[in-house]
């Protein structure tokens, strides 16, 4: 799958957030999108999936050459796109098992769906993610801790095997063990048929998942792109370095940290 974003512009409540984003990503590649809070990273992932609160004011998003901006959210998902949410929503009364079974039926086709194979696979991924088997019968995300919610996102990704996944700050709020488990989950999926974009503002998850490409986003545009060396440069010099390089004035309210304290 090839995901191309061309001069994408979007706003929320008349406030422009994305001011011309260009990115080309393909299966087999892992991209990291970094940047301080408020730079528009989460907006980008929401716009890729057609969140109703955002209005696209210009540009295109192409999947294998076809513009998907007119497609409904579920139609985009059915192309093989997946988003791991920064803040997964609670769905009371809907069990993880029931929800994932339905999502898997849609993803892989109802005719080919085998309940026994599904449940077996679900159980083994739960073990892999170091999650209790009881999660199958728990209501989706209801009463989950922050870390459990993030693991549940990765679990869903493992079950649904997307062609391209956007992971929106899946690393934030995780302790080091959970971070390693989440990174392992992503690494399981890596291969020629899987592409992904990891959104983060910490470098530490990148120690575990080794992205092929790194993009730095700032105030609604991609200000620089490169390889893994960019992460190290950023770690050493901080976002100030980016600001100076690109002649951007720092504003009072956006002192950002790159490192986890």
């Amino acid at each position, binding site marked *: 799958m090839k995901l191309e974003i061309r001069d994408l512009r979007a706003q929320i409540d008349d406030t422009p957030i994305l001011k011309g984003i260009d990115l080309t990503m393909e299966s087999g590649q892992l991209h990291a999108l970094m940047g301080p809070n408020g730079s528009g990273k989460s907006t980008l992932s929401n716009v890729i999936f057609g969140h109703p609160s955002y209005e696209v004011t210009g540009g295109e998003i192409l999947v294998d050459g076809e513009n998907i901006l007119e497609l409904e959210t579920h139609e985009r998902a059915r192309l093989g796109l997946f988003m791991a949410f920064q803040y997964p929503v609670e769905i009371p*009364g809907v069990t993880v098992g029931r929800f994932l079974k339905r999502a898997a039926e849609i993803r892989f086709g109802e005719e080919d769906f085998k309940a026994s194979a599904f449940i077996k696979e679900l159980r083994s991924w739960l073990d892999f993610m170091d999650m209790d088997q009881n999660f199958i019968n728990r209501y989706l995300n209801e009463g989950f801790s922050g870390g459990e919610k993030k693991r549940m996102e990765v679990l869903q990704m493992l079950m649904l095997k997307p062609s391209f996944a956007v992971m929106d700050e899946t690393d934030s709020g995780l302790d080091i063990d959970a971070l390693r488990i989440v990174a392992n989950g992503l690494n399981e999926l890596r291969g020629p048929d899987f592409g992904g974009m990891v959104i983060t503002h910490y470098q530490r998850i990148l120690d575990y998942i080794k992205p092929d490409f790194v993009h730095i986003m700032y105030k609604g545009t991609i200000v620089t792109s490169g390889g893994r060396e960019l992460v190290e440069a950023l770690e050493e010099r901080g976002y100030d370095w980016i600001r100076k390089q690109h002649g951007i004035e720092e504003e009072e309210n956006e002192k950002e940290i790159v490192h986890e304290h």
Partner: protein
Amino acid sequence: MSTEQEQVQVEDYKYGFHFPDESVFKTERGLNEAVIHAISDHKNEPEWMREFRLESLRTFRAKPMPNWGGDLSGIDFENICYYAKPSEKQYDSWDDVPAAIKETYDRLGIPEAERKYLAGVGAQYDSEMVYHNIQQELKDKGVIFTDPETAVREHPDLVRKFFGTVIPYSDNKFAALNSAVWSGGSFVYIPPGVHVDVPLQAYFRINSQNFGQFERTLIIADEGSFVHYVEGCTAPVFATDSLHSAVVEIVALEGARVRYSTIQNWSSDVYNLVTKRGVAYKDATVEWVDGNLGSKRTMKYPAVWLMGEGAHGEILSIAFGGKGQEQDTGGKCVHCASNTSSVITSKSISKDGGIASYRGQIKVEPGLTNVRSHVECDALILDPESKSNTYPYMDIMSDDVSIEHEARVSKISEEQLFYLTSRGLDEEEASTMIVNGFLDPLVKQLPMEYAVELNRLIELEMEGSVG
């Protein structure tokens, strides 16, 4: 709304079909003494029952219409047929039931359900039970499951002891109406210590137009017994209104437990005004599971009177108020003894301009100790046009009482829909999943077959609900 949309609505209701009216006897439209005599004559009733009916009619006339709850101004009592007899007799084999009536029940899946998971079935078509059957094994244990007319003839002592004692004809206008013109329903008696492990079911079907169905059910669970009784109902879709006004009385004697489940799925032109009440004596339990999906207006508040120590009452109410519908439902528990407990749980959903209201009452009589009650109502509103109301009444006259009341109103959030649609579910399926999830804690308490049925009905209600 346009006619086209109206038609779509009609087609959505799977049970909207009807057969030609082939009643063997029908009273003229309108209500008067002659109608009462005609009903009484056809049933060959004892004089005391005829008198009971006539007295009830006088009370009905004297009582004003309720000035609260749903809008009932559309009911024209003079344009309703109060008695339609569908066949000459009642049958205990489906093969003998007249063809059109049998086909109706086949399409509703009743004979199949009877074979698979019911201990006994009663089927009412307009005014009369056309079929009643119960497993021989239960008959041998002394369980009685029949229509009330037969019970009046064959078990007069039991009937006279309990009939109209839980819900007197003077209780409210519609109980008076039912008492005057009642026809059909069920009479159930469970002997001491007998546990009926699989449910008994009665199915109520209206076939005639501008018709009023007034069945009457009396369930007596003798000491230490158990029974689960299930009631289902549907009607054809006509352009004009019908009335369903039942009375259900439950008597749970010492240590008995009765569970009564309803999945009401009347067509959208039926006024459904039902009085349901149970009395629980020492250590007895009465449970109502009351699902209301169909009808134009429903006013129904199943009640439990807790008469002896250790008694427990439980009411689960599920209401779905769709387009043009008003579901005014809830429950009532009256604590008349110490060491009693009650739980009322209500879940309502409103969509397409529908109204779902919870109306409930907890009453604790004076001088009691250790009384506990928990009331929980959750409402889910699917769009800005729809409404949900909560009317909780508390009437507490003792001090040693623990009462909890929780009420929540929620809406399906954009974020929930976005989350589910991002996994490939379309918006309609996502909304349905959220609605079914909202009901799940209640539905789980239903026997599996009814849980499946309820989920399926919710899916039908949700179809086409997202633009």
